[in-house]
């Protein structure tokens, strides 16, 4: 699945640099935030701040980079874990 990313600022109170993630039909499926310092082992990673539809729920993974995020989100949208 081809996802489109669009930069956005996110009002988390800490990690503001984010990406809106759209599916092929330009529907918003997720919001990613770029983790700053202070996260052991996860600083610099992209965090699934919010997900919609199949991405909704208690699971909020982090991805090492945006390619990994695209891959992980595509898999979850396709029904994988």
């Amino acid at each position, binding site marked *: 699945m081809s996802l489109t990313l669009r930069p956005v600022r996110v009002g*988390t109170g*800490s990690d503001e640099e984010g990406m809106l993630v759209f599916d092929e039909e330009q529907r918003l499926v997720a919001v990613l935030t770029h*983790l700053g310092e202070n*996260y052991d082992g*996860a600083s610099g990673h992209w965090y699934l701040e919010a997900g919609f539809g199949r991405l909704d729920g*208690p*699971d*909020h993974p982090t991805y090492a980079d945006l390619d990994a995020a695209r891959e992980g989100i595509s898999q979850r949208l396709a029904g994988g874990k």
Partner: protein
Amino acid sequence: MEGIHHHTAALIRKLESIAPLAPEEKAALLRLPLRLKSVPAHQDIVSEGDRPCESCLVVNGLACRYILTEEGKRQILSFHISGDIPDLQSLHLTTMDHSLGTLVPCQLAFIRHEDLHALMRSHPRLGELFWRDTLIDAAVFRQWIVGLGRREAHSRIAHLLCELLVRLRAVELVEDHAFTLPITQGELADALGISAVHANRVLQDLRAENLITWRGDTLKVLDWQGLQRAGEFDPTYLHLVKKEAL
């Protein structure tokens, strides 16, 4: 290795925090045969599906009850400190419906079920006291359910820290509002149903609000009233008779 008295002292301290103990009851507890065992961090003490014939007293360290989902996600159900017998229920519920594991290296003392049954037959009031302890256990679960279902993460973490402080203070493990909390943010997150990132942010907020510091393994509460307000914490549900713990 058979029972050494000072290991039972942890249990006596715990029980005395929820009800007075008569001298003969303490003496009976001290006569309980114990099998001592040191267990490294992150190991199961008993696992879901096991049918144990003994229960485990945490002498020192930190243990947790947990359940893994089919996907391998862990929900921590409760934390257990010195003096707790977290699998006391296996005395009556023969098959473990959850697992009990160590979070740090733990000193444990196993008590055979037959010895616990004999103790409660000879001292029925101790049986009532263990019953009271399991009812308090259920009261703690009620608070956790409210937290998981209805409290914001900020309040949920504050409530848990208040709970740990009061429980640890009841067994004399708090000094000047500081206690050892040797868990990771991931473990905290697994207990509170949030992500480790979210737990990290909330802890940063609690620090910024000057409610706590958490350096290494030491958590210090800087503003006890403020933390209780943040967690909407009322210790009534812990049913402590040891009022100095509150």
